[in-house]
């Protein structure tokens, strides 16, 4: 299933440094939302605050409200682990577990939580997830080899497989395709299209074409200068952002005339 996300007055800090300021937005369920913006504007930072991954960094903290289907994930009574089981994440850098085989990596979400799966169940999960991530054919003969022996792109797809294997409600992807070749990228884009039917997908990307291809809505972030906080400049339908942007800086950015 899928959940909507409402962000209210969110500020994200690294210690005393305000990295992202005053975000207000509503992210639709069963849709793909893309975050774009220049490097360093806080896309990753904001994305990580959506599943409370931000706070694992020492000194990092968040102010404001972040509602998942109306429930504030930053409510004091909320367990971040519960949040993370509902909001999955794929990182910018592929990070398969080096001690695990490819199979174990895919099943990590279950195995690490101590879930007991029958052999057939786990076989099925592994195959479905790897197929969805367009990796099955390449690794089906070496499921018991270490995951770290794959190429960068293969590793990233393995991480995607690992995330979708646990079927979260919301999936966050931080430049998931930046290490992938066009074929894998296309496959992942297709996959995102499929996922969107059941999940809320949020993707950070530098590739405007990709944003245009996969997302229904696009959020443009920008930063006034170094040391300044990143801000949400414009958030709207993807077609609107790319064709009729309201803000000057958005227009500059999407047309490549920026900077």
């Amino acid at each position, binding site marked *: *299933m899928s959940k909507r996300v409402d962000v209210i007055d969110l500020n994200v800090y690294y210690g005393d440094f305000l990295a992202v300021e005053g975000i207000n937005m509503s992210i639709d369920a069963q849709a793909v939302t893309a975050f774009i913006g220049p490097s360093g504007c806080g896309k990753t930072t904001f994305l990580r605050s959506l599943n409370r991954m931000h706070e694992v960094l020492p000194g990092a903290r968040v102010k404001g409200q972040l509602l*998942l289907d109306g*429930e*504030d*994930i930053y*409510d004091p*009574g*909320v*367990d971040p*682990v*519960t*949040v993370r*089981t*509902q909001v999955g994440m794929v990182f910018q850098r592929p990070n398969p577990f080096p001690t695990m085989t490819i199979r174990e990596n895919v099943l990590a979400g279950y195995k690490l939580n101590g879930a007991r799966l029958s052999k057939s169940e786990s076989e099925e999960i592994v195959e479905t997830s790897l197929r969805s991530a367009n990796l099955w054919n390449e690794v089906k003969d070496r499921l018991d080899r270490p995951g770290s022996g794959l190429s960068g792109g293969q590793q990233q797809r393995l991480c995607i497989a690992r995330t979708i294997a646990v*079927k*979260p*409600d919301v999936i966050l992807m931080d430049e998931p395709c930046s290490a992938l070749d066009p074929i894998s990228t296309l496959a992942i884009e297709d996959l995102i299209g499929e996922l969107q039917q059941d999940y809320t997908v949020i993707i950070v990307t530098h590739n405007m074409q990709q944003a245009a291809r996969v997302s229904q809505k696009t959020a443009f972030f920008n930063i006034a200068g170094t040391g300044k906080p990143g801000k949400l400049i414009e958030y709207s339908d993807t077609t609107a952002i790319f064709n009729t942007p309201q803000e000057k800086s958005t227009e500059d950015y999407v047309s490549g005339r920026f900077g």
Partner: protein
Amino acid sequence: MTSSLTQSDKRGVAGDRVFSALTLSAGVLILLTLAFVALFLTVNSRDAVYQEDQGGWILTAFLDYAYPLVIGTLIASFIALILAAPIAVGVALYISHYAPPRFSKSIGYVIDLLAAIPSVVYGAWGMSFLGPALIPVYGWLHENLGFIPLFAGDPSQTGRTIFTAGVVLGVMILPIITSVCREIFIQTPKLHEEAALALGATRWEMIKMSVFPFARAGIISGIMLGLGRALGETMAVALVLSPGMLTASLISSGNSTIPAEIALGFPEAPPGSERQAQLIAIGLVLFLITLLVNMTARWIVSRHKEFSGAN
């Protein structure tokens, strides 16, 4: 999975709580143990510095007794460290970056064997092999470098000098430092090593740029571990050394270390006597020395914390 955010699974949360409480209590247990050791030492060493029938405090008498031992301990550990630390770092580097990769594991194993040798055996080896082997060296040093106070004095005829003890200690702490350094060196991120190599660094320059900065804290803690061992080593020193009063000479018999003094004196110290208290008191002194040494090391490491490699 579809449950509301707040009704999270109680057992999971409890698991986290229990585990973190466990780790915390392990840490606290260590502190408590140490506090008890300190208490034990302090209480039992009271008689060494306070004697009713000698007019109360006898601190100077105790200090007169203790300072040669302190200096002796420091000399022996210092010799050990000077000898062992560079070689250990070299060996660790050899294993991690120089030896043929196929053999490096086995070579590491071979060096670990040095740690496998019990201190009694080191003591016996130092006493019956190393000491006699060093006699001519001491003679030579005395003849040619006798003008340096370190090599003045009659060269020992048995080889049982503080220098021999230092060498034995050096051999003993070598594998400790090596093994800590090796593990850290191996962990140096390939990314950073390759960054250096790609800039045209030679192997040594790569090590200076990537490995050492990354391993810095690890090297220091390895050395501290070794130093701790050297400071506290009892049996080997007691067997190797021919203890005596403090001398500046490294090549004649004399000098003693705190642990050796305790080991040699404690068995015959009359129960509850001032002598027993004295021995425990120098144990306390050693404890304080370790404290100081570690404070220094911490200080060195912390000065460079901002650029620590593990992030």
